[in-house]
């Protein structure tokens, strides 16, 4: 607990106009996000530097066109859309804290659920970043705004995704913002101001990933994606990567001393992962069986992905790395050792996270295009610019997450409070 309690100066009169309190709340949040230890500054500086490298790369892409990527008319989506897809999963996966906390009244999870909500916000920001990076004409972005541009709803699945992602962002901003604001004022949150939104967010989390899967799944010309199993697999992987990330995050938060909580949440999330890693491997096997045993069009992409075809093998190392990591994480999660030794648990989470990242990114998006619709085998590997922009977007996401956690937890634990707020009792307002 290194940080001193922020005070709001000058001492405020007993009852402030709500608008004024809200402004003070925002300014306290702002001040909090710019003050910290040298470690905080170092971390933020590194992230900012990476984000700037990304910004620079994106600028070159805007000027010279998307020829600076290695995408082509054959593989017309690449690293950006791969990362976008994974990011949606991460955002949806955060709901695995919300469900136990609110549907099953898990009190331990309740203590840390704000972390899931803040993660969802940062992850959606990452998704939006990747969509913008992938657009050939971001200057025309307004064309896709409902009511202002020409919103091709309900026919285009992409318009559903716009609604789903932005809706999810707003819902989570509201929930996290409201809870923090109430803590700041030292008031108990009123159920009707957030509980309905919490339940809405649960359904919405499922929907963002379902809609994103439908984006690919609905394309008849791409047999690799055109499978009813895609949406279920998306959800299963989301519920691996989300909990895996949160478990690591919880350890970091605990280590930073900003929040004290029991082991309950970590145990719950680990149990969830034990189920979802197996579920994902099972569905993967089922897909492989269908493709390889039947043969034909669907098998062509699967063969290329796992074994290469026509002498081209670019994706083979990716997918086998992913499979190895996924299997390793499954084994680790079931070892008795992992229950007692944190390092083993963290290793399992790291394997699961990276495994899903590869499988759902490069391993899912690229084979949709190889072979192409006219059965040409044209390969794809990302360019330097694509890697720069990708690193930049993730750095931006981590910046958002860091600030959100720093401010959020300070408010949550009552370290930043309005001057007229009543004192905390037992860690609650």
């Amino acid at each position, binding site marked *: 607990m290194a940080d001193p309690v922020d005070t709001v100066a000058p001492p405020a009169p007993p009852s402030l106009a709500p608008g004024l309190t809200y402004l003070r709340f925002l300014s306290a949040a702002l001040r909090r996000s710019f003050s910290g230890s040298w470690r905080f500054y170092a971390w933020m500086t590194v992230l*900012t*530097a990476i984000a*700037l*490298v990304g*910004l*620079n790369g*994106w*600028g*070159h892409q*805007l*000027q*010279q*066109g*998307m*020829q600076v*990527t290695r*995408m*082509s*008319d*054959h593989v*017309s*989506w690449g690293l950006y859309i791969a990362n976008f897809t994974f990011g949606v999963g991460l955002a949806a996966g955060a709901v695995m804290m919300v469900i136990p906390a609110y549907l099953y009244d898990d009190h331990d999870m309740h203590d840390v659920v704000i972390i899931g909500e803040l993660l969802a916000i940062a992850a959606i920001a990452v998704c939006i970043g990747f*969509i913008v990076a*992938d*657009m*050939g*004409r*971001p*200057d*025309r*972005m307004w*064309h*896709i705004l409902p009511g202002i*541009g*020409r*919103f*091709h709803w309900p*026919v*285009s*699945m*992409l*318009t559903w995704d*716009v609604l789903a992602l932005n809706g999810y962002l707003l819902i989570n901003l509201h929930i996290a913002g409201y809870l923090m604001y109430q803590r700041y004022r030292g008031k108990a949150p009123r159920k009707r101001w957030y509980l309905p939104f919490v339940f809405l967010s649960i359904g919405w989390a499922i929907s963002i990933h379902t809609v994103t899967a439908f*984006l*690919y799944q*609905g*394309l*008849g*010309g*791409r047999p690799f994606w055109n499978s009813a199993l895609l949406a279920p697999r998306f959800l299963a992987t989301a519920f691996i990567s989300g909990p895996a990330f949160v478990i690591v995050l919880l350890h970091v938060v605990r280590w930073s001393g900003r929040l004290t909580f029991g082991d309950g949440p970590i145990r719950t999330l680990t149990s969830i992962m034990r189920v979802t890693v197996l579920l994902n491997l099972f569905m993967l096997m089922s897909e492989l069986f269908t493709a390889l045993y039947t043969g034909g069009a669907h098998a*062509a992409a699967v063969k290329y992905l796992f074994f290469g075809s026509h002498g081209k093998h670019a994706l083979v190392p990716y997918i086998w790395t992913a499979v190895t990591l996924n299997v390793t994480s499954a084994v680790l999660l079931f070892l008795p050792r992992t229950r007692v030794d944190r390092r083993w648990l963290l290793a399992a989470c790291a394997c699961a996270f990276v495994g899903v990242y590869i499988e759902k990114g490069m391993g899912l998006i690229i084979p*949709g*295009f190889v*072979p*192409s*619709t*006219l*059965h*040409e085998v044209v390969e794809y590997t990302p360019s330097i610019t694509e890697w720069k922009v990708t690193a930049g977007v993730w750095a931006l996401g981590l910046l958002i997450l860091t600030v959100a956690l720093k401010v959020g937890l300070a408010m949550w634990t009552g370290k930043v409070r309005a001057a007229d707020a009543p004192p905390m009792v037992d860690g609650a307002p």
Partner: protein
Amino acid sequence: MSGPTRRVALKVVGATLGAGAFAYAGRPVAQWAASVDIDDLLRRHYKELTADELAQILRRIEDETQKKYGVEVRVEDIPAQDGVSFGYALNLSLCIGCRKCAEACHHENNHDRPTNNSYIRVLEMQQGSFDMEHGTVDYDHAVPAPGKYYMPVQCHQCDNAPCVKVCPVEATWKEKDGIVVVDYSWCIGCRYCEAACPYHARRFNWRAPEIPADEINPDQGYLSNRIRPQGVVEKCTFCLHRTRKGLLPACLEACPTGARVFGNLLDPASSIRYVLEHKRVYVLKEELGTRPRFFYFFDK
């Protein structure tokens, strides 16, 4: 130096470096933002334009082409005619795979020269197989080769077009004469349509097309062969700037074997109707339900 002074000095240095880094990293984005054309940015969708606005836009495109490419061109908006619905058929018994059609398309439609882009891809197929997996577009030998037949593929102007369905901003749509068009000034470059098309019929402008001034086709249609901007998608339009004026598509005129048959499906006397009524025609990937307007047939 005492503690506080040093801290202040450090902060000043840090802030200067930081500001410099931001300015340097952000420069390309700023330059790009400054180059965005405000008129182009704020204009409405093609279908919402008044005749006056459209005329102004056409003049602006002409001016810009003059500035960028150094040629005087005429950009027209040629509407679809009533009572006309286009169809195209290709006689696989006659096609010899010479790729003259692809070349004609390249020139007619003002495609990027260095990439040799064209809306037509010609597949060399294995006799006895319809499976494109056994075909190739990269053949490089005298044609026709023994044991092979040739299948040119271009946009099928599907009546149930997946590309039109998926576009989030209605930048691409089907006209009443059956042609699927793209408004290059409305497309946001998401390439969802390119992923959705089962026939590899769409192309993306990965950069602004490069064409020497003396090779530019100056007779241009707003919805067809005008020089496309960077970052948007393009596709075959059955040469609507020609066919809506009663001419034939450039690919048909270039074909040395007469393998291509084009016409008005609503005209009982047209040759396309003759082919559809008397030949055993088929469409590509019929099982996908795209309902193409592009037909293949064998003569012998």
